[in-house]
């Protein structure tokens, strides 16, 4: 219901903005309408984004939306750059993401935090390229979000950058981590989802890297959307193969079922996941004791002791009543990185989206960013990020950073 009202409100604002924009053809009057919604008289750069605030992946979209709005407010309060934010729901659906993109474009979006998830990201990335609008996605980690030719990781879109690791990097990093930490176990089983881009991407690189570094993979099983309920076979086989680590490059919903079913059959390997597992603790009525000891390779842990992380976690908790996950942290960093780049490149609200994009592309490839998901973060011209992953373990129902 709330969403509906928001949507209607947003629609009304968008219509008003379009009307004014049509009448004045981009002169100063259009900015006064924008200023009204931002609650600020100075001209603001319009920053958009989309993600699933409804649907099966709603935990991600909601986290990104919350952190996005929080960060924009903070940036505006500092005053170097003024943003006007708008976030649309795409229900983790490529078609709806394209619609959301259209809505944002009509609204006059000048820069974007892209999509929250990979499937929709893949659908809108060509549009960002075509219209030359710059996007920095917090969490759409598939290679297909930044490359038109995914198989060879070539032909980049150029206007979509990532704040998170790409899927292959997560696979490689996970294999390396497990190789280096034999105390977790030595025989690895993998359960992945073969009709999902994200899962396939992580899995393929993980298996390749495991072979390279000599990590023993004893079981490799899959499932797909239509068999997403019953994991008894995969778990029985992994157990029979003697897997003492179970690598789960999947989203949290099927993972919660795997944890439950493994527990029911007294199979207790070390579960190891990547960022898709983040969010498992936020599921309603989930028995968090099942996730006890689950490892996640993620760039962010909410118990970090540095000033920035503490501030973010406190503010987020105060406002939304829960500990932020990695998606929220990535989104928060996105806004700050964009603010830093906009300031350095001298972006102003009267520039066209295309001018903004050209300036930001140049700025992002040469700048270094310090955020809560990594220090000394840099980007290459294809939009891939370079930062180091951290391992996090679930203890007493909260994420705790692992000390190496």
């Amino acid at each position, binding site marked *: 219901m709330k969403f509906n009202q928001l949507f209607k409100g947003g629609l009304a604002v968008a219509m008003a903005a379009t009307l004014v924009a049509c009448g004045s053809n981009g002169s100063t009057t259009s900015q006064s309408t924008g200023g009204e919604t931002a609650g600020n008289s100075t001209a603001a750069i319009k920053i958009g984004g989309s993600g699933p605030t409804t649907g*099966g992946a709603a935990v991600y979209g909601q986290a990104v939306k919350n952190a996005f709005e929080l960060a924009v407010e903070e940036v505006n309060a500092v005053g170097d750059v003024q943003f006007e934010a708008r976030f649309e729901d795409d229900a983790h659906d490529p078609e709806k993401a394209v619609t959301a993109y259209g809505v944002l474009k009509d609204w006059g979006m000048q820069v974007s935090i892209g999509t929250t998830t990979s499937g929709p990201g893949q659908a809108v990335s060509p549009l960002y390229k075509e219209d030359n609008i710059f996007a920095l996605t917090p969490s759409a980690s598939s290679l297909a979000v930044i490359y038109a030719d995914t198989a060879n990781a070539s032909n980049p879109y150029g206007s979509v950058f990532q704040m998170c690791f790409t899927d292959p990097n997560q696979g490689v990093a996970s294999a390396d981590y497990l190789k280096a930490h034999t105390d977790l176990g030595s025989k690895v089983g993998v359960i992945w989802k073969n009709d999902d881009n994200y899962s396939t991407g992580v899995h393929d690189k993980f298996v390749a890297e495991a072979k390279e570094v000599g990590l023993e993979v004893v079981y490799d099983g*899959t499932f797909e959307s*239509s068999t997403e*309920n019953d994991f008894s*076979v995969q778990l029985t086989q992994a157990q029979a193969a003697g897997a003492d680590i179970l690598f789960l490059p999947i989203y949290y919903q099927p993972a919660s079922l795997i944890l439950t079913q493994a*527990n*029911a059959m007294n199979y207790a390997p070390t579960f190891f996941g990547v960022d898709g597992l983040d969010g498992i603790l936020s599921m309603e009525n989930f028995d968090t004791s099942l996730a006890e000891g689950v490892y996640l390779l993620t760039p962010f842990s909410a118990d970090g002791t540095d000033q920035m992380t503490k501030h973010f976690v406190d503010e987020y908790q105060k406002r939304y009543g829960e500990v932020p996950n990695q998606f929220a942290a990535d989104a928060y960093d996105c806004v700050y990185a964009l603010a830093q780049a906009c300031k350095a490149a001298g972006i102003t609200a009267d520039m066209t989206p295309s001018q903004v994009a050209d300036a930001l592309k140049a700025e992002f490839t040469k700048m270094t960013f310090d955020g809560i998901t990594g220090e000394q973060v840099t980007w290459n011209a294809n939009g891939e990020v370079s930062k180091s992953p951290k391992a996090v373990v679930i203890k007493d129902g909260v994420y705790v950073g692992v000390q190496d």
Partner: protein
Amino acid sequence: MEILSYLINGLGLGSVYAIIALGYTMVYGIAKMLNFAHGDIIMVGAYLSFFAMTRFQLPVIVSVALAVLGCTILGVVVERLAYKPLRQATSLSVLITAIGVSYFLQNSAQLLWSSSTKVYPTIISNGAIKIGSLSISYLSILTILVCILVMTCLTLFVNKTKTGQAMRACAEDKGAAQLMGINVNHIISITFAIGSGLAAIAAVLLCAAYPSVSPTLGSMPGIKAFTAAVFGGIGSIPGAFLGGILLGVIETLTKAYISTQLSDAIVFAVLIIVLLIKPAGLLGKKVSEKV
């Protein structure tokens, strides 16, 4: 020993499919329509029992009873409002309406209960009976027992009671049944009531095994169970039972011994082969169309 544990898992999964398939097959047998909203009745049943157990802290039995009651009422109401006015319409219109009802229920659930996944409470302990190296979970045993119980009751009901007799008459020839003084609309309502009540039982068993509740929860099991009903011969009660069990077992065994990646492809390939050889399904009656 492993094959036995796979078989039992398959039987458990198949039993749930069978109970859902009963709903499809009864409605098809009597009203001659495919009720594609059946899967979403399951979803409503899951939510009702979920809220009864978590928000209102009711005991399991009471929650299940409430879910059955709720689904029965919902099934009858849906039939009255959406299908009854279309009794004389073409079967295609009814089919489209059923798909509409399905989306209506799914989206209403999203609005009412949000789309984020909820985790179903444990209703039966995680324990298992151990025979040698074989362990059979209580849940599998319960599921299979409930399925057999439901089957037996339903068969007795259809064969021994007056209402059951009327149902069979309606399935045979609606026009003639009406002439014999059977209230056909009444019988169709009863069919929907029973099918939807069974959907609620299936929902509880499904969620007990796979504890994740979301508005789209019913669609996949619904489609699988529909397949099972066709597999066994749509319109036939023993057929739905057999089809459901076979589907569950084949699905589990293919996953175990052939490929986890191709399990669905193989399940449906088997279905196609069976339908090529026996177009009416395994236990379906061959009806020659009068031209």
